[in-house]
């Protein structure tokens, strides 16, 4: 009798913990839906076609960066250099003649910048065991230094018209840049959640020692994650340079922290080993939606920062509660 009761409570506990886990996974989507509903009630213009298209356009560069950031955070890292990589890629885009024939060289150079930065980050972190926070911060400063050394703080030249179309144009109301983001996201969902490499990434993030013991080359997985993050950041830099049109040395400023926040909002654990691309993208969408809603509600622009700050802490706290529960 007693054994039966124990069995019952244990199965009940299993059920409850399963429910908790499910809630932890879907809570971000519920929160997003709630946010949209509240914003729509407060300002009916929020979910109008043009505003949705507007928000999608804004979310695309951040979304591309967040995908890379997610990979890096899953392997217990952080990439603070993404904003600087974006700006450097954007400055590289203005370094040519601004003709459409330069598109391929520009993409090549930008991706090389992203690749080089990611490689440097990864090597510093794995081979010299520099903390990721520091290694990527140093690369941020080095890249900023490179930009100043190159243009003295005053970039000149235009991005080719092609990038303007990619960054700011739309196809029947659907911005091109969100299509690019969606394509990249689809590829990375496969890479992270389906491929062998993805499994290795999660294993390395969840338990590096165990990963090494089962024969995974941990260093290579970590370096690859940073390289992918660098490549994605460079891509985002090009997309963003097309969106803003006017490129200066600080075009990606703030993206490093926003991308980390978006990933954490989306359920990517800073302790590593846990997270999904889709969740992180919803995190990015939440950040953009908050900014947009504050503007539409006619609140002073300063409230963007205040509300964003409070939401970040509360959302992260909710995640911890649901994730830490047994």
């Amino acid at each position, binding site marked *: 009798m007693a054994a039966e009761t124990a069995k019952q409570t244990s199965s009940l506990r299993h059920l409850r913990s399963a429910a908790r886990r499910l809630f932890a996974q879907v809570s971000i989507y519920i929160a997003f839906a709630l946010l949209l509903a509240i914003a729509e009630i407060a300002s009916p213009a929020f979910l109008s076609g043009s505003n949705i298209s507007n928000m999608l356009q804004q979310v695309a560069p951040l979304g591309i960066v967040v995908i890379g950031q997610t990979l890096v955070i899953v392997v217990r890292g952080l990439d603070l250099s993404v904003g600087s990589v974006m700006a450097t890629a954007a400055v590289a885009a203005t370094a040519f003649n601004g003709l459409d024939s330069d598109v391929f060289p520009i993409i090549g150079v930008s991706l090389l910048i992203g690749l080089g930065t990611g490689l440097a980050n990864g090597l510093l972190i794995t081979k010299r065991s*520099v903390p990721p926070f520091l*290694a990527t911060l140093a690369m941020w400063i*080095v890249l900023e230094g490179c930009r100043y*050394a190159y243009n003295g703080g005053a970039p000149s030249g235009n991005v080719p018209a092609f990038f303007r179309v990619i960054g700011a144009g739309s196809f029947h109301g659907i911005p091109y840049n969100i299509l690019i983001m969606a394509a990249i996201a689809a590829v990375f969902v496969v890479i992270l959640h389906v491929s062998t490499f993805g499994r290795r990434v999660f294993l390395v993030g969840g338990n590096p020692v165990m990963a090494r013991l089962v024969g995974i080359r941990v260093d290579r997985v970590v370096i690859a994650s940073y390289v992918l993050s660098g490549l994605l950041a460079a891509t985002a830099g090009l997309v963003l340079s097309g969106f803003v049109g006017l490129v200066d040395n600080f075009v990606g400023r703030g993206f490093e922290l926003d991308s980390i926040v978006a990933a*954490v909002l989306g359920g990517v654990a800073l302790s590593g080993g846990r997270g999904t691309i889709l969740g992180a993208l919803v995190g990015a969408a939440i950040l953009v939606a908050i900014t947009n809603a504050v503007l539409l509600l006619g609140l002073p622009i300063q409230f963007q920062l*205040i509300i*964003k*700050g409070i939401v970040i*802490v509360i959302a*992260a706290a909710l995640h911890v509660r649901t994730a830490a529960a047994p």
Partner: protein
Amino acid sequence: MKGFASILPGSTIGWRATRSAILPVIVLIALLLIIGVSVSDRFGTARNLWNVYEQSTGLALVSLGQTLVILTGGIDLSVGSMISLLSELISGSIDGDASLVLPVLVGVIMLGALLGAINGACIVLLRVHPLIVTLGTGATLQGLTLLYSSHPPGKVPDGFDEIAYGRLFDIPMGASVAVLLVLLTALFLRYAPFGRYIFAVGGDESAARLMGLPLDRVIVFAYGFSGFCCALTAIFLVARFGVGQPYAGYNFTLGSITPVVIGGTLLSGGKGGVLGTLLGVYLLGLLYNVLNYVGIPTDWQLLVQGLVVILAVSIYVQKRKVI
């Protein structure tokens, strides 16, 4: 076990450990001094060196608080916004009235400590990673700063700049007060039980918990102390520039972490100390100064700085691994 060992004398906080940890910084500083003296006659003058000493004060104060936070295994990314907010409050509420100076400064210092303690309380109560909490409070505080004033508000009475520029027998006084505070903190960390708890918490949090140390209070204290240091930095900056500014502290957010790490404190916590941080601050100050004397164009200086930081941190970590 690690936590237990780290509160025993002579392990990670003894003078011997401190000495070996700060040796590379001292070597680098010596190297910079040699380079400086050999490229320019004016570099080695008392006037120039006192200037470097004086200009390092702001960074020294923020990094002092940041060191304690990092020693507990955390990080404080709200320092920049906190400094900006407090600097605006100082010049905005004094607004040229000399009789308000003392009450406002006392109030700002208390407010700084309180805001820092709120950071700590959020971390302890919500169990959210310090990076996220302080990023969030940092954004909130920056919003409040801009709400209070988006341009430099008010003014300070004549003589307020003495805090930053006052000298006694040619020795900068403001800077010396900061150094004194660093030394006092070093003694506190070394000899006061509560100071040792800071190392224990950063060394191994669960061990510290099992030993019954007042974990939560230690963390709240560290962030409160960081807020207190931010208030002092804000006072120094207002004295230096004559007015508070909405982005006065912007560069300190990440800038305050560099000297801590160069000074041998591990970002993972539990190892390091404030003396190393102070040397890290002087290393960076001298680096700026030497780069100017060497004649490296301003546009190239940032690149050189970044490379030096990479060099410094990769030397360190290698050393730690061997130990």
